[in-house]
């Protein structure tokens, strides 16, 4: 915790049988860190790794579909790949990216020195990683899941014969544990640890969106977990939740899955919307237009997102009354989404727009999200959706939302915050090359899918015959997918190059508005030497600029109001000590899975690891007393310094 002086009980080194780790540098420190910034980086690096894997899966899919009658993959391999592509991109890429950026920047944006639950936060990351690795271990342990990312029962319960679906079920439950703990930490951090003066209506929009999705996750994860557990029981213990012959109903799964799945869509898109709401004002040199409307439309989306799930089920046969209700709710959720887009355009309007790489990606987000939003409205026209659902038109739609939207927003955030995280600027020319390759490749890949879907090409089909009129656009789409791959190669090279000889970044290279830019790049472990006193929205901007009569910014003469104030550097900030126990207790989770799938003996190991981890964790003080650099008799000296 960030409290300057904490009285801690005497050390209990024997509690966990391992000596408390101390180092905060070196490879070992990454396994024991409780620093939210390091955990953010871990999430980010893991997400990039899974993004590359999920991308390779997508390329294989596109190779198979490049021409009719493709024979690069078997039907089984194809079904496995589209299942893993979807599952990976949703659960192991976009969700952890929100956790990555949120972990790193939410405390910095609210002026906090740490998060509320540093060890729980570390546990969330290790649970996510454990779930992801567990899921991917299925490739080597009898076959990966092949039931689609949506895992529809009863195909996945009574008509699926390997262990792949079991891996999928338990992998998602484990990553769900990670999401829940991360959400709890975000909520308590944002509610309780804001700097003095950081009222809700002064909070950066990105932080707001993390708060909203944290609540969404706390509501949504239990719903899918119930469904997953029922599915696992149907598969392994003879229950009949979805088994028609014994009186179950496969539609129950669809309700549970989409009652999670639709809030999930907003869980994926709201953080990138927050990123864009940070980037557009900085590079237009104007405050966000209609801040409160952008915030509340995000909150409104969070609420309304619970009432639209059955629009994934318009062809299921719910009856006209249910279809009418969900049609109307689906159409009107477009209103708050539209409000956001108009406010972003209002932000650009009258600005002085600098087309740096983060800005290009943010603009790309807005431009592509408009298309995804409009095609979403055409889905909302439910009779027409009966032609569109389960075709490539839907694939086009949600990639415009989740790739053209979310991924462009995420890349905007990466280019924007990279200098803050690493103290170096990503190369601007390579960044622009990345953007344009990805922008063109993205539209080549997913634009034609609108046409293909309307021409009747269904999703999730490993092959299609000649003579359907789908050949040309499929080939274009495949070419586009490799253009995206090229753009990602440029991005990875850019990181590699920057690490070796990147241009050093100042603390505030973009002349930005929010608190994270007021501290050094990269930030010190305790974030803020002095906890900031927040006096306005975009507080850091107002420290730098006043306004003249016309409302134009005028640079302030730098005075004593900034970090030069007396009492500056402070050795009395006691950051929580590193800990093994989040890792140890999370490490037990996959062995629960192996125990349930293969042999109960693994459950013993799992139980030991979890129990050991939790016990030692409980007995361990958050700050190791002996790690304190100084005795606790200084406070009264602080004012004197």
């Amino acid at each position, binding site marked *: 915790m960030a409290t300057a002086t904490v009285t801690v009980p005497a050390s209990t080194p024997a509690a966990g049988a391992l000596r408390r780790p101390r180092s905060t540098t070196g490879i070992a420190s990454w396994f024991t860190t409780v620093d939210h910034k390091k955990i953010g980086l871990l999430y980010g690096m893991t997400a990039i790794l899974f993004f590359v894997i999920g991308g390779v899966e997508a390329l294989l899919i596109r190779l198979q579909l490049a021409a009719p009658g493709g024979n690069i993959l*078997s039907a*089984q391999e194809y079904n496995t790949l589209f299942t893993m592509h979807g599952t990976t991109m949703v659960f192991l890429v976009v969700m952890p990216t929100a956790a990555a950026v949120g972990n790193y920047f939410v405390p910095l944006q609210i002026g906090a020195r740490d998060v509320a639950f540093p060890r729980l936060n570390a546990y969330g990351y290790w649970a996510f990683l454990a779930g992801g690795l567990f899921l991917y271990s299925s490739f080597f342990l009898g076959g990966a899941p092949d039931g689609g990312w949506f895992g*529809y029962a*009863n*195909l996945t319960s009574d*008509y*699926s*014969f390997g262990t792949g679906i079991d891996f999928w079920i338990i992998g998602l439950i484990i990553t769900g544990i990670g999401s829940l703990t991360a959400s709890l930490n975000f909520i308590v951090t944002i509610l309780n640890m804001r700097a003095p003066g950081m009222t809700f209506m002064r909070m950066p929009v990105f932080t707001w969106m993390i708060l909203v999705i944290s609540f969404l996750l706390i509501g949504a994860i239990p719903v899918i977990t119930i469904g997953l557990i029922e599915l696992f029981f149907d598969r392994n213990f003879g229950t009949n939740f979805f088994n028609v012959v014994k009186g*179950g109903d*496969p*539609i129950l799964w669809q309700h549970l899955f989409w009652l999670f799945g639709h809030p999930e869509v907003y869980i994926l898109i709201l953080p990138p919307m927050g990123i864009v709401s940070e980037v557009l004002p900085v590079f*237009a*040199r*104007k*405050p966000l*237009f209609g*801040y*409160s409307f952008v915030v509340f439309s995000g909150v409104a989306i969070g609420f309304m997102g619970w009432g639209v799930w059955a629009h994934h089920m318009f062809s299921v*046969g719910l009856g*006209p009354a249910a279809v*009418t209700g969900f*049609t109307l709710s689906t*159409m009107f959720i477009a209103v708050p989404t*539209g*409000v956001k887009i*108009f*406010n972003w355009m*209002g932000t650009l*309007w009258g600005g*002085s*727009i600098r*087309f740096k790489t983060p800005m*290009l990606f943010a603009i790309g987000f807005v*431009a592509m999200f*408009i*298309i995804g939003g409009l095609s979403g*409205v055409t889905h909302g*026209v*439910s*009779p*027409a*959706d*009966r*032609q569109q659902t*389960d*075709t490539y038109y839907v694939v086009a739609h949600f990639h415009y939302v989740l790739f053209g939207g979310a991924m462009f927003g995420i890349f905007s955030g990466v280019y924007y915050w990279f200098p803050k995280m690493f103290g170096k600027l990503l190369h601007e020319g390579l960044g622009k090359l990345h953007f344009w390759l990805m922008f063109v490749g993205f539209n080549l890949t997913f634009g034609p899918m*609108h*046409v293909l879907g309307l*021409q*009747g090409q269904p999703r999730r*089909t490993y092959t299609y*015959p000649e*003579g*359907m*009129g789908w050949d*040309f*656009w499929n080939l274009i789409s495949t070419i586009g997918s490799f253009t995206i791959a090229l753009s990602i190669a440029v991005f990875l090279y850019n990181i590699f190059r920057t690490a070796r000889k990147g241009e050093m970044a100042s603390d505030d290279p973009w002349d930005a508005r929010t608190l994270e830019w007021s501290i050094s790049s990269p930030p010190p472990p305790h974030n803020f030497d002095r906890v900031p006193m927040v006096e306005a929205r975009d507080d850091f901007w107002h420290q730098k600029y006043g306004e003249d009569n*016309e409302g*134009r*910014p005028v640079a302030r003469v730098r005075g004593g109001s900034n970090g030069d104030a007396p009492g500056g550097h402070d050795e009395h900030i006691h950051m929580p000590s590193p800990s093994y126990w989040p890792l140890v207790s999370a490490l037990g989770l996959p062995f629960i899975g192996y125990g349930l799938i293969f042999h109960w003996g693994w459950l013993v190991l799992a139980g030991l690891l979890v129990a050991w981890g939790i016990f030692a964790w409980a007995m361990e003080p958050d700050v190791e007393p002996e790690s304190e650099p100084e005795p606790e008799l200084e406070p009264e000296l602080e004012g004197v310094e």
Partner: protein
Amino acid sequence: MRRLASRRSAHRRASSTLRLALLAAPLALLAGCTDSPQDSLKPAGEWARKVDGLWDVSFLIAVVIFLIVEGLLVFALIRFRNRPGNESPRQIHGSTPLEIGWTILPALILAGLAIPTVATIWDLADEPKNAVQVIVTGHQWWWEYDYPDLEVETANELHIPADTQINVTLRSYDVIHSFWAPQLAGKVDVVPGHTNRLAMHADEPGLYLGQCAEFCGLSHANMRLRVIAHAPAEFDEWVASQKRPAEQPPAGDAAAGYALWASKGCQSCHTIDGHDKSGPIDASGVSGKSTQGPNLTHLQSRSTFAGAIFDLTPENLRKWLRNPSKLKPMDPENNIGMPSAFPPGESGKPLSDEEIEQLVAYLETLK
């Protein structure tokens, strides 16, 4: 001159490329009018046309909004780009009238779109009167069609009279499928434990393609279907021909094939009316015949087989009988799809070349 030069800046080029790329998307949609026999935008009957009319309205609204909003975006990017000597922009925080305007206006547009949408939802829910009744059963991975009033059974190729209402009852005894012939109607899922229905109608005689649209396992891609609409008189002829039981093959290879049919256990899955109705009763218990595999009584009246994916030729039948799962991915070990060994199970062997010839000769008599 300097001003001109600055206009030719990278930003401007960037913006016009952006604009081009954005325009390409709707144009691509319009260009989608190539020869595509499963095209949802080429409705060929009353119900598909109703849905298509709604699509046209929503697409038009979407394109207009797209052009306006993206146009404004591109305009803003060009007009308000940072230029040397710019004054710093005024720090405008928002405008309540604008917020109210762009909340209400989209809501009104959507409300306008909702009216025909909701009307069509209820329209599609009505069962048409004087309709020909068809029961469609989805199987992993083929379609079974029963005409309860006409006492006809067939598979994969659905024959209907043109310019007549068809009421399709949908059911499944394995997993969820979705019945979809885009030119004739939107898809409706085929859900075990539920009885769904959809109305179908074809203006003209013709061939309409479709396929299963809900992922139903390994060979989902190979669960295609055809709808053949006939002129009414022609349809009656077809019905009459389908009601004839199969004839006994007199002698030769075909007769040998008939014997194999019985001895190899084919009838445990397939029915051939008039030859052997003693197959086990299917879990559905509906026909008293085996519906594990397609009814083959009039196999030769079809142009395709195995989920409407292979042309019905003697050569393809031979390949099929040699190893069905090699031709079309299936999972006979788990009792899904056609086995490669006969009789099915551990005691069975693959068919010899001679046996295959005899069986194909027999199948060729099933007109």
